[in-house]
């Protein structure tokens, strides 16, 4: 190695490490006297910049999602789930029949071999005898400590196209059989007892009016989007509390105009909720839920999206790609950098039933939007684009800008 080579290495080392004063002085002296070495050192530094500036390899969104699913999949059978199973076993020992771990198969049309068909309707009254497979009523210890969403004898209506009735309050097919057929929108159910919490659902024992079905139904999905409702609680006749008014205030005006308080089936951790009905062909329902912190609201958002296989860069309606614009109550319209909690982000997906879903965060509020049709892109655009694009100051998206100050 020549002295020139040694000084070239010294100059290369200076790119990543500080040189000792004596080394720096020797390098400077050599470069002052060696023109070819100066050129090489300049080129060396240029090489370092070029390495930084090589265009990045981009992982295709579908590949990123596939890898994420592989990463996430083992978690469903690892530590936390094993603990859940252990707790479930404990509860089973305590004669609790309601605990199991499984997917949300409540409205699954498949697997009819496990279904139990009730006897034919004898008359259009709820007088049909309960099938022998109906589980015993839940013990008092199973019942939720918090106030029940629906009191016994309340008549509720199904608000989704297909609702599964089961013989026990769990999605575990080994414990709970499915009653056939699925019950449709508008079917009335009489609440017998409940709620019972199992598999992250609130279950009620019901008797279907006009049908022989007597069994357990879940009141809402994991986000609190209701599957059954008390018709008397709908509409604008129910006054808002202050906190519910504050939720409505986070939504843009055309959404916030026809909302009602929601007291049952709130997402875990939510302190209050409202539900809004819109007179559009596209939107079925908007649910907005207030959390104690924007972090909790965003956690609910991220968990909902990730549980549906939506990750960063997973598609046109993804959870937000680097560079996506989002409305931040603190900073206005910003680009998502990928490292901080983002407000006003919108992601969308189709659930396992093909329904269009959009999820968003508006600061402390988590918003779920359910679409009537399969047109996911249109629902996403509805939630994302500004109401008024004429520059009136209305922020883009479902989130209303909070009042200044």
């Amino acid at each position: 190695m020549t002295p020139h080579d040694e000084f070239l290495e010294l100059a290369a080392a200076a790119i990543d490490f500080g040189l000792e004063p004596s080394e720096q002085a020797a390098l400077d002296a050599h470069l002052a006297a060696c023109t070819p070495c100066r050129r090489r050192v300049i080129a060396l530094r240029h090489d370092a910049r070029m390495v930084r500036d090589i265009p990045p390899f981009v992982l295709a969104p579908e590949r990123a999602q596939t890898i994420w699913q592989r990463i996430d999949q083992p978690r469903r059978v690892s530590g936390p789930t094993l603990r859940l199973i252990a707790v479930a076993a404990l509860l089973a020992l305590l004669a609790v029949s309601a605990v199991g771990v499984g997917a949300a198969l409540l409205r699954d049309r498949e697997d009819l071999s496990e279904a139990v068909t009730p006897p034919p309707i004898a008359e259009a009254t709820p007088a049909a005898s309960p099938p022998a497979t109906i589980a015993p009523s839940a013990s008092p210890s199973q019942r939720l400590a918090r106030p029940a969403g629906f009191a016994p004898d309340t008549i509720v209506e199904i608000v989704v196209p297909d609702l599964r009735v089961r013989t026990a309050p769990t999605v575990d097919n080994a414990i709970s059989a499915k009653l056939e057929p699925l019950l449709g929108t508008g079917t009335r159910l009489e609440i017998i007892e409940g709620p019972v919490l199992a598999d992250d659902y609130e279950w009620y024992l019901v008797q279907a009016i006009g049908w022989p079905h007597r069994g357990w139904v879940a009141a809402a999905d994991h986000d609190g989007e209701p599957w059954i409702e008390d018709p008397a609680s709908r509409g604008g006749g129910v006054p808002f509390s202050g906190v519910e008014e504050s939720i409505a205030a986070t939504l843009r005006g055309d959404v916030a105009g026809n909302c009602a308080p929601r007291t049952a089936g709130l997402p875990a951790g939510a302190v209050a909720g409202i539900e809004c009905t819109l007179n559009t062909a596209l939107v079925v329902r908007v649910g907005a839920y207030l959390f104690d912190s924007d972090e909790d609201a965003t956690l609910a958002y991220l968990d909902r999206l990730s549980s549906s296989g939506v990750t960063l860069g997973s598609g046109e309606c993804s959870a937000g790609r680097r560079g996506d614009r989002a409305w931040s109550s603190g900073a206005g319209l910003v680009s998502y950098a990928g490292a901080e909690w983002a407000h006003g982000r919108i992601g969308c997906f189709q659930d396992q039933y093909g329904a269009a879903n959009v999820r968003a965060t508006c600061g402390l509020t988590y918003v779920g939007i359910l679409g009537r049709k399969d047109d996911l892109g249109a629902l996403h655009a509805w939630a994302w684009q500004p109401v008024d694009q004429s520059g009136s100051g209305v922020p883009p998206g479902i989130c209303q800008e909070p009042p200044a100050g």
Partner: protein
Amino acid sequence: MAEAASAGIVELDRVAASRVRSRAMVAQAYEAYHAELYNFLRRSTRDEAAAEDLLQETFVRLTHEVDASQPPEHMRGWLYRVATNLAISRGRRRSTVLRWIDRYGRLEASHSEESPEAGYLRNERISTLDAALATLPAEARTALQLSAEGFSGEEIAAAIGRSHGATRTLLSRARVKVRLELERQEQAR
């Protein structure tokens, strides 16, 4: 009995909440860093499939840390450290295999992975630089890539598990080797 069952339900809630939070932590880290880590691993390994595998393995290890209630204090640095170790380990294993292949005369295997990458490169200068980087051993190439990602010399030393002095020598010789290779290619035109 009732108290025990209630406690069980509370435990379910607590565990479920913990699971949601840990999943969200890993998901957020994936959102934030998977793109740059993939690029880093692709450059380090020069192999698309290997980069995807090591990206997955990096986040699986993060999952284990989070599940064990040991989330990294500095997420980005931790992810790069794990990815670096995986890339270098793979490079060492691959180097051994390639030496064995070379000895038995099947040299074409050592060049087969370069052609797909060339399609992504924008221009000839970058292509030339990339070819020069390809002459480096995996460890040196990984160290240079860490530097390009903004890590300091000390951070690179920690990531590759070498001393300050050894890392300095590794990096400076790698830079000089790349420079000399570029000059050689320029003279060959």
